[in-house]
């Protein structure tokens, strides 16, 4: 129970801090819309082409916007040495990890809540269905987990935030492929059963990633 209270306290702290400035969320949202525009122009997305490209463009946008938020979240801990503050407290290191990861998940979810309707309208694809929402949730969970772990690594480097996309994107490939394929399949009228293979892959990915992250996070933060 103490564990859950700690995790929740960290999530609340991150949300409260973001609420005061709203810098990160607005940056993520504005970036997403800009990315959407760029993709539309660059790939000349209209009509049927747009519908086919929608899942891919959606997930590419989420991935890149995600790296913005992830970097910011961990840099915030770095600035005034706050990560030490967390480590000095008599709490489980995995609680710290889960708290940060859930906070990042929440921020990405907020961005997706805005993006999904926007994409649905612009690309004329039915994204607001339970199947697609499930896939989006599963994909985001894995991404937030591995992203939090790697952002913790990245903020320790000279290159800081720049390092994160390089570290993160190759590792997010299974999740990205699965999410795009599953979303595409569902949008074209497929049932959940038909994209079951992809969903299973997402679940396996999420479980493995969360397990490995929880196990190794302690080693990242203790010298």
């Amino acid at each position, binding site marked *: 129970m*103490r564990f859950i209270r*700690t995790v929740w306290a960290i999530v609340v*702290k991150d949300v409260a*801090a973001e609420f005061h400035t709203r810098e990160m969320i607005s940056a993520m949202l504005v970036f997403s819309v800009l990315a959407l525009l760029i993709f539309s122009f660059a790939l000349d997305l209209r009509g049927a082409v747009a519908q086919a490209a929608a899942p891919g463009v959606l997930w590419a946008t989420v991935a890149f916007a995600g790296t913005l938020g992830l970097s910011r979240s961990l840099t915030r801990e770095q600035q005034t040495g*706050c990560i*030490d503050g*967390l480590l*000095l407290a008599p709490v489980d290191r995995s609680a710290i990890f889960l708290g940060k990861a859930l906070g990042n998940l929440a921020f990405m979810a907020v961005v997706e809540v805005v993006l999904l309707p926007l994409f649905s309208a612009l690309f004329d694809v039915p994204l607001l269905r339970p199947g697609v929402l499930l896939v989006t949730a599963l994909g985001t969970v894995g991404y937030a987990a591995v992203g939090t772990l790697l952002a913790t690594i990245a903020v320790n480097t000279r290159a800081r935030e720049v390092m994160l996309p390089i570290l993160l994107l190759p590792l997010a490939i299974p999740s990205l492929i699965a999410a795009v394929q599953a979303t595409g399949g569902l949008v074209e009228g497929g049932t959940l059963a038909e994209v079951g293979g992809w969903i299973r892959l997402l679940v396996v990915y999420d479980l493995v990633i969360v397990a490995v992250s929880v196990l190794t996070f302690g080693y990242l933060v203790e*010298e």
Partner: protein
Amino acid sequence: MIQVHDLTKSFGPHVALAGVDLSVETGEFVALVGPNGAGKTTLLRVLATLIRPTSGSVRIAGLDPVKEGEGVRRRIGFLSHRTLLYEDLTAEQNLWFYAKMYDLADSSARVADLLERVGLTSRRHDLVRTFSRGMQQRLAVARAVLHRAQLLLLDEPYTGLDPLATQTLTNLLTELAEEGCTILLTTHDLNRDLKVGRRVVVLARGRVVHDVPRAEVDLAAFPEQYMQLVR
């Protein structure tokens, strides 16, 4: 309270601590002095459970920081020249957060009381990023003592403080020392900081080279003596 025996810490080929022996009784107020690179920060961070020793033994209140980390962390407070405060939260929110991290029972009362003691009650709803350095350090002290730590570890806490903040900090430390708190403070400013401590330990090149009660230190002659010791 603190028992350190033959403590070493290496970061790759660089040896930060080369065999430190130190014993601090409950209620003592120790000033740890030494030049940059002597290992003061490393030693403090080992005691604060932030760094693992390479070899040697460390006991805080009888507990091993590596194996019984949670128990040790509950009993210690840490303050450095970095504030460990969240700039995007208010003063109150910062303290409430840490109160939850330390699982305090009477958090609201305790937070209000400490804000009073460091003179920040009027600014409790303001974001920390709007505070001056002195105010931030005062809040940081409140954070460090929030959970009624038995041992207070301070790493060059006076860095960048104006005279008012310096005095507030000194007063607070004196109060805490009188209440029985054990205090270990690192510094490389001999003039100001030797006046607060009751015992002076000199650290150089990763080792303790001098350890005397404050009363035995001749303030006039000490700077010269210090130069000799650390060269």
